[in-house]
């Protein structure tokens, strides 16, 4: 198992947000974490990478227990994280943003270089010296993903990559995610957009009110329109 999370509970101050979350990601798998706004998708990711201070439960990554490790160690172990709000360094250029994400190559994980990433996201290659603050939303989304890949992760948590993007850019995102998968990166992608998730994922979890309420393959989810209607439709 690449990543296995069990009994994850998280709190923001006195508020209990996640309840006994469990999920697993296999080697090279793309797993979707589906759920509505506020269901707990982002908190799950933030908890896994250690950005939520009050968390307990067991998080195993490549056989190592990372449930109490500090964020930078988790990331350096090869677990990349792309936040939902993108959080580009707006004062830094595209090249500099990528530099912040750069880590040493990691044996057993696919290796990324600037050139390779400019091939994956050609738009970025055309604006190497542009400050992050002067890029469109779609370009920023590409940059956050590229920035995380510079760390040569073997697994990436990708938080709502299609949110607020034009259909054309969403198509590019699908291609990029499939390329990452082909290179051997395992992915957990949080989504509200079931259509998008279907294009990229092998399996899916559905989260609602901080609890996992469905786990199965995409085909199994397709066979259960009742679940889809109960937990995903608006």
């Amino acid at each position, binding site marked *: 198992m690449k990543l296995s999370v069990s009994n994850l509970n998280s*709190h923001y*101050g006195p508020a209990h947000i996640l309840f006994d979350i469990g999920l697993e990601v296999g080697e090279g798998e793309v797993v979707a974490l589906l759920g509505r706004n506020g269901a707990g998708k982002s908190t799950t990711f933030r908890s896994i990478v250690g950005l939520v201070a009050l968390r307990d439960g067991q998080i195993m990554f490549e056989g190592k227990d990372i449930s109490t490790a*500090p*964020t930078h160690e988790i*990331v350096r172990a090869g677990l990349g994280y792309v936040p939902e709000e993108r959080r580009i360094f707006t004062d830094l250029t595209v090249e500099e943003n990528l530099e912040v994400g750069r880590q040493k190559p990691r044996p057993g994980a696919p290796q990324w270089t600037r050139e390779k990433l400019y091939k994956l996201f050609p738009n970025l290659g055309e604006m190497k010296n542009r400050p992050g603050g002067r890029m469109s939303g779609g370009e920023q989304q590409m940059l956050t993903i590229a920035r995380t890949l510079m760390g040569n992760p073997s697994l990436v948590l990708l938080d709502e990559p299609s949110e607020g993007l034009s259909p054309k850019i969403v198509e590019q995102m699908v291609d990029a995610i499939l390329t990452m998968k082909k290179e051997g990166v395992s992915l957990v992608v949080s989504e509200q957009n079931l259509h998008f998730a279907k294009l990229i994922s092998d399996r899916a979890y559905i989260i609602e009110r901080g609890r996992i309420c469905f786990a199965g393959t995409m085909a199994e989810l397709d066979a259960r329109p009742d679940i889809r209607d109960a937990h995903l439709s608006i």
Partner: protein
Amino acid sequence: MAFYFVQFLTGLASAASLFLVASGLSIIFGVTRIVNFAHGAFYMLGAYVAFSLTERLSGPLGFWGGIVVAALAVAVIGVLVEIVLLRRIYHAPELFQLLGTFGLTLMVEDLVVLIWGPDDLVGRRAPGFKGAVDFFGQNIPSYDLFLIAMGPIVLGVLWLLFQRTRWGILVRAATQDRDMVAALGVNQKWLFTSVFAVGVFLAALGGALQIPRDAVHHAMDLRIIVEVFVVVVIGGLGSILGAFVAAVLVSELNAFGILIFPTISLILVFLVMAVVLVVRPWGLFGRKEAPARRTPGLTVIPWRPLSSVERLASLVALAFAAMLPFIAGNYALTVGAEIAIFVIFAASLHFLMAVGGLASFGHAAYFGLGAYGVAFLAKLAGLPMIACLLLGPLLGAAGAAVFGAFAVQLSGVYFAMLTLAFAQIVWSIAFQWVAVTGGDNGILGLWPEKWAASPSHFYWLALGVSAVVVSVLRLVTFSPFGYALRGMRDSPLRSESIGINGKRIQWTAFIIAGTTAGIGGALFAYLKGSVFPDNMGISLSVDALVMVLLGGVETVPGAIFGAIVYKALNIWLVSQTDWSKLVLGIFIVLIVVVFPKGIVGVVESVMHRRRAVAPKAAALAAKMEGAQ
């Protein structure tokens, strides 16, 4: 003409050191969000260590090597400070780090006297730069020319460091979003430590380079830190280029102010700073800060009015305090009266800072204005004491009304700096307007009338006023006005969207705080029998901050305990030891590390945890403590 040109060059030469220190402060603030009060102390240490090294090492290599080694050695001290002290308090309430670094400053001030003695030390002249260059009959020390070149060189090196190295890119990224940098695998701890080391190195280098120019003495830290704050604020926090331009501006203002406006030379710089902040609140090269990612309310135990038992307990405590004249002598009563006065002063700042969320660095201005108000009324108008006590604080109110109107337009560190500038302006007026204020000689002979003259009577007067003031401030805190004020503190946007006129509320709070500080000052004038410019000086403003933070800024009664503990300890230490600053500094640093929520804050969270009956809630509370 040549004379003015030489004066201009002298200004440029002074700008070099100022720029070095200011850029260090700015870099540290940008990444760690710590306003490093000890930056002046590191500057001073740099000068002292460089003095010793250059005395012992001979030859040009010894001199220049000594300067660089001194700066490196102080940077190592800075690293130790960061690891041992600051790492523990990054997550403490805002400005708490200021208290910690202030404690350090106190320690260093006494330590340098212990090590190097109290006398001014005159350092070696720089080899190769001993002479002067003749310029149309005017002499320019060649060392000044060297310093003039140093400024742009350091600016260039820093620019390269930040633009061209991975470290610089990481620092710039962390300045914007620290958590995201960690989420990309960067170890923040060491990034912070290295940033602190570079900042301290620059400060120490600035100090070391001053030794051929100025005597080294043990008060040089406070003088530079105030100027550096001004530079950083004018230039824009976090901007190195801004620090350079502002350092030149400030140094030239100092150089020419003396020539052109000798009567207002001291306030010129602060006037410019106030104008800059009003016109461009984020400094010349600064940028508006993104709202801090802070969720207030998580760390704070909700405030509530006193229960009837607690009210009774307060009354009993007050009654006990009122019995002091029956058991203590005159000296203790005078000390008691002074403490009561400082309770008023601290409570007024606490009201502005904790309830209003507006941390003023120049609160002594209103304390001092109240004192001068009394002095004017008693000496010039000859009014009786009661009238003076009632009307004197109005001068504090008037000052707060004028300055507050500008200050509340800003928030956070910029608010703090603007209030500091205003306080310096008021101080400078008191200092330089000799005809009215007596300047440095102050106004003497302000003795209480007969009914309040005996130490016990004056003590009761001070205690009574202080009890009334504290109660009124508490009532206001729990009034609808207080709720609106706290709303503005926690979420300005939401408060304004429900129809609260936020700036007006904050302005009113500023005036309330200024008036109550003035009441304290009015009593203080009678206690001491005199007023001096120092009654509104920076060190008094800092004292008030320390009292509030020490007591616990997130608690309601914190200021009272902070004032009592700090003032009593201060007075006692001064009478017991020659090294009171050292002991007090150690005490403050320990408090900061052990009780990061202040004295009352710690007591409250212990009691709060006891009250939480369910073991699960207690476990969670304990975990929250740990997580912070």
